[in-house]
């Protein structure tokens, strides 16, 4: 088991390095760079020597491999450098936005779990009845509705019907929990509903499979009450794939809520990424991608760990 996990752990690094290389090369293929953009304002062109000087200052005149070496050297020491657009340290640009995105992801996951588990279990227990159909339709509808559309309707409803507006500025949870919740609950609900769809389906099918297993039948035969069977036996075993799906969705939520952030006016990681791409802020893009991909890779590793721990057969794969 130790060897398997060690292998898994070590494999994380080439993946991260690959992500770094791909990002580094990709963004340099995009036409236009930060300097040109910044000094190509509405009034027309800036003299070429100013542009050249600025490029030299940012190291953009160096060959790509040299730039990469310098950057990765910093990353190893956890120094992501400075934003090319604002000149401030990357962590300063990211920290508040990451806190926000992370929190929305957590809250949305909670919403998704609260919706998915009861609905999925119910659908499985009442398989192929109208209850099952309704639950399936509702959850697929969640998957089908574009989150930006849902968001627009949410906001409009709050404003027009209830004449109420969520707070405009992000207040960290530890500063003012109530203010914080008031702002983030709406996107969390919209996203949570959407992502509960996958988890509901997972729960349903996992439950169905477990219900067919022998020991449940035995338990039923022994005359145990339905509720006890459910909580003690069925749920526990059905949970593993469900947890996997939820964990992976969670990892994607941190960086993947671009459109939701736009609609709900959240200054999160997703929108920052869009802005960084628009500014060709290479250092910021790189840091963001590493962060988001890093989260995903770590969550995946943790899931592997859990699997290996719960189900020893995995180790021999």
């Amino acid at each position, binding site marked *: 088991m130790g060897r398997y996990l060690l292998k898994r752990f070590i*494999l994380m690094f*080439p*993946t991260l390095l*690959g*992500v770094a290389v*791909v990002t580094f090369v*990709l*963004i340099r*293929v*995009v036409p236009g760079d930060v300097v040109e953009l910044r000094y190509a304002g509405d009034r027309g062109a800036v003299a070429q020597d100013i542009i050249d000087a600025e490029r030299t200052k940012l190291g953009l005149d160096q060959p790509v491999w040299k730039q990469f070496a310098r950057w990765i050297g910093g990353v190893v020491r956890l120094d992501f450098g400075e934003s090319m657009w604002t000149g401030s340290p990357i962590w300063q640009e990211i920290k508040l936005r990451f806190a926000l995105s992370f929190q929305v992801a957590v809250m949305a996951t909670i919403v998704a779990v609260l919706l998915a588990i009861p609905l999925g279990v119910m659908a499985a227990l009442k398989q192929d009845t109208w209850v099952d*159909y309704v639950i*399936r*339709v509702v959850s*697929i*509808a969640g*998957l*089908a*509705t*574009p*989150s*930006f*559309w849902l968001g*627009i*309707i949410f906001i*409009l409803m709050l404003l*027009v019907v209830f004449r109420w507006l969520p707070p405009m500025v992000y207040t960290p949870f530890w500063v003012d929990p109530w203010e914080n919740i008031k702002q983030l609950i709406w996107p969390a609900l919209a996203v949570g509903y959407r992502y509960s769809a996958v988890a509901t*389906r*997972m729960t349903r*099918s*996992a439950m*169905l*499979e477990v219900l067919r297993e022998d020991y449940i039948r035995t338990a039923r035969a022994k005359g145990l009450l339905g509720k006890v069977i459910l909580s003690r036996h069925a749920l526990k075993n059905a949970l593993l*794939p469900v947890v*996997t799906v939820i964990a*992976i969705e969670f990892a*994607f939520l941190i*960086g*993947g809520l*671009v*459109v939701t952030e*736009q609609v709900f006016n959240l200054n999160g990681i*997703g929108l920052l*990424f*869009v802005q960084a*791409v628009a500014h060709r802020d290479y250092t910021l893009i790189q840091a963001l*991608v590493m962060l*988001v*991909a890093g989260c*995903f*890779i770590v969550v*995946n590793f943790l*899931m*592997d760990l859990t*699997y290996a721990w719960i189900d020893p057969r995995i180790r021999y794969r």
Partner: protein
Amino acid sequence: MAVARLPVPESAEVRAPRTTRRWVAVTLEFCRTRPLGTIGAAVIVVMLSAALFAPVIAPYDPEAVHFSAMLMGPSPAHWLGTDPFGRDVLSRLIFGSRTALTVGFAASLLGGSIGAVIGVATAYFRGRIDLYAQRVMDIFLSFPLIILALSLVAILGNSIPNLIMAITVPMVPRAALVIRSSALAVREMAFVDAARAAGFGHTRIVLRHMLPNVMAPFLIIVTAFVGQAILLESSLSFLGLGVQEPTPAWGLMLSGAAVEFAETAPWMAIFPGVAISLAVFAFNLFGDSLRDALDPRLRTQ
């Protein structure tokens, strides 16, 4: 990675006899046992015909500007109202289905096919090739879908073919993963060894013997991806990074003016939103039922 551990489809090697009667029977059986899937299929058929016959069905030219008819509510002349340029919303929706379906089908077929070839090939060769291919897939899987698509659009520019490319790329590793796990089981089957013993080349074995046997997961993946691709296209268009005016596209119809006029002209926001939801909904319903029909054990995904 834990993303997709699919059991092998049992029905994989069963080939349906190619007779018309058999097809009708299968279809009828599908309709009887899977009412939800049938509804999905019906919506898809309606959409396909709308896209196909758009110039005949659509009451107006979707791109012609008529300021005299700007922002009119639903009426007999304009069933779903008009936009600020006096363009008929219904006509734009009908023509927009072309964009959605083109991008949806092209991206999912392309992504599914490339993914299938990679998945089957890595399962067949195993060893080092598999290991390296998996690492490359891991790298692409680590980017959230929208982030990868967004970066690609920035690089390629936003025409429809480029948009299809941008949506295809993130789909490839996802398809490859699913197909690979099915193909691993196919690889163990006797006929593959037989083919090798007979001295057939790798390409031939992969393409002729293994690929046809992962048809079921392939179909499932493709239908599931169509919906996703349509959503992704509309998200990108909504962000202003997808299809561009004056080309009619659903996501584009929802951005900008639809939000600004949401209160005075809600028809501009409601109908394209419904169209997107309905389309994705239909593909998901159909895909779900198809999966259940093709292989009951695949439900776990």
